[in-house]
Every structure is written in structure tokens, then in C-alpha cells.
């Protein structure tokens, strides 16, 4: 991976960014992810400000509130923050060549990420049982202001975020397995850094909307 300037075939390249290709590629990819989430979050903001009535948190569903459990959501966000710190600790460990801590922190990250996905699925199932769907049945539509839009934006944004976390967890498992096989060294640990960038990016979007 330390081949920012030496390419395959021993070709020297103009140094450019002075970061290796995979890392630069990940940053470029993340730039495009920002635009993808902009379209979803932008749609939310515009729909949200375009209407007077919007479901409020902390009030029961039938009285025009949202059925979302803020406590659970906050706890989930907290887990993502924790997984961010374990991720960066794993990276810091392998920078020192510390295999033991690399494995420990990577495993912790996988665990936290997987729990996040698990809790989100449980939360979804609870919401669906309550009748809170992306498109609202008629009985709810009569009670909850803009139930349609609220449900649609909620599920779309959290769903795509969850999908990104899930993909992150899958990649992280792969990286962890490789770490347990001794695939990363003090000199060569690009994979840990690149997956870390993706992971932190996904965490950034871990905040939810009231």
C-alpha cells in the first residue's frame, strides 16, 4: 500500500495527492455519498419546512406525535459513537504494530455495529406493529398530521443509513478476519484505514431527526 509513487511494474508516478490510491479512492467515493445523502436529507428538510403540521416527538401517535422511542434512538446513536472510537483505536493500534489491540478493537467495532443494526431492526418491527409504516394506513392518516411524509422520510433516511452500516459491518468482518490471520502490519495496514474512513463517515450520519 505504500505505493503512492511506485506503481505496479516499478513505474514512478507524479506524486499527486501523496496518499495511496485506495485511500484517495475512498475519499472520492465518500464525496459522492455526501451527495446521495444530500438528496435524501434535502428531500426531508424541504418536505418538513413545506408543511405546517408535522408529527411531534414525545407525544403518543394518536395525539399527533411520533411513535419513535427517542431513548432507544439516542442509545443507538451512542453505540455508533462508541464504535467510532473503537475503530480509531484499532487503527492507532496497528500504527504501532500492536496486533492484540487491533484484533480486540476491530472485534468490538463489529460487535457494536452489528448491535446497532440489530436494534434498528427490532425498532422497525415495533413500529410496524404499531401501524407506523412508510405509507400510513387510513386510520393513522386521519389522526397524525402528515403521517405519510413523516413515515416516508423516516424509513427512507434511516433505512439507507442502516443499509450503509450493514455493508460497513460486512466489510468490517472481512477486515477483522484478515486481522486475525495477521494480514496487517505496522507498515502495511491500508485496509484498516480505508474501512475506518467509511465507518466514520457512516457514523456521521448517525444522528436522527426529531
Amino acid at each position, binding site marked *: *500500500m*505504500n*505505493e*503512492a*509513487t*511506485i506503481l505496479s511494474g516499478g513505474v514512478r508516478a507524479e*506524486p499527486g*495527492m*501523496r*496518499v*495511496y490510491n485506495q*485511500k*484517495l479512492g475512498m*475519499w*472520492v467515493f*465518500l*464525496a*459522492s455519498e*455526501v*451527495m446521495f445523502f*444530500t*438528496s435524501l*436529507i*434535502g428531500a426531508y*428538510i*424541504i418536505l418538513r*419546512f*413545506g408543511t405546517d403540521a408535522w408529527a411531534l*416527538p*414525545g407525544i403518543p401517535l394518536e395525539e399527533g406525535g411520533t411513535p419513535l422511542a*427517542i*431513548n432507544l434512538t*439516542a442509545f443507538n*446513536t*451512542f453505540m455508533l*459513537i*462508541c464504535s*467510532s*472510537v473503537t*475503530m*480509531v*483505536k484499532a487503527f*492507532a493500534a496497528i*500504527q504501532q504494530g500492536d496486533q492484540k489491540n487491533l484484533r480486540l478493537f476491530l472485534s468490538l467495532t463489529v460487535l457494536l455495529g452489528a448491535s446497532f443494526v440489530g436494534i434498528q431492526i427490532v425498532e422497525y418491527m415495533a413500529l410496524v406493529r404499531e401501524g407506523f409504516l412508510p405509507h400510513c394506513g387510513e386510520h393513522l392518516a386521519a389522526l397524525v398530521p402528515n403521517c405519510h411524509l413523516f413515515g416516508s422520510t423516516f424509513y427512507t433516511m434511516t433505512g439507507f443509513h442502516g443499509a450503509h452500516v450493514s455493508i460497513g459491518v460486512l466489510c468490517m468482518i472481512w477486515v477483522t478476519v484478515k486481522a486475525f490471520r495477521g494480514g496487517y502490519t505496522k*507498515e502495511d495496514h*491500508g485496509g484498516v*484505514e480505508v474501512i*475506518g*474512513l467509511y465507518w*466514520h*463517515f457512516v*457514523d*456521521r450520519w448517525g*444522528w436522527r*431527526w*426529531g
Partner: protein
Amino acid sequence: MAMETDMESAEGKKPNYYFIWLVLAVLTAVEVALAYFSGMPRAVLIIVLVGLAVWKATLVAMYYMHLKFERLRLIVLATAPLPLAVILILVVLLEYA
């Protein structure tokens, strides 16, 4: 090679990852508290919450993603889409102003 020099330059001022974690956790707690207990008007609340979220995202990008220790051109590349995102959202919001 480039990466190693990158890291060495960052070595001296490696951030305290746990401290940043604490700040992030506190900010999240503040968000929840505001959502529950503050009597702020809705619009103000949303702006405050967005502000806190941006603060958190900036912390993560600067320290956990090491953007603070990267070269300027990578920082430019990483932040390039943000103005576009802001333009899109602000302009479309004007529809309802």
C-alpha cells in the same frame, strides 16, 4: 512511503481519541435533553440540533478521519461536495420562503 510520512507528521500531535468520544457523547446527551425538555420554538430547536450535529460531524471528520492532519488538497477534495449540498437545500427552501 507517503502514508508513513503522513502518519509520522501526525504522530507528535495524535489526538486523544477518548476525549473526543466523551465530547461526542455529551453533545448527543445535550441533543436528547433539548428535544425533551427545552421549551424552544420548533424552528429554533431544529436549527440548534442541526448545529450540534454539524459540530459532531466536524469533530469526527477532523480527528477520527484524520482530516486535520491531511494535506490541504485532500481537505479540499473531501469538503468539495458540501457547498453544493448547501446550495441545493437552500435554493429549494427558497421555494417556500
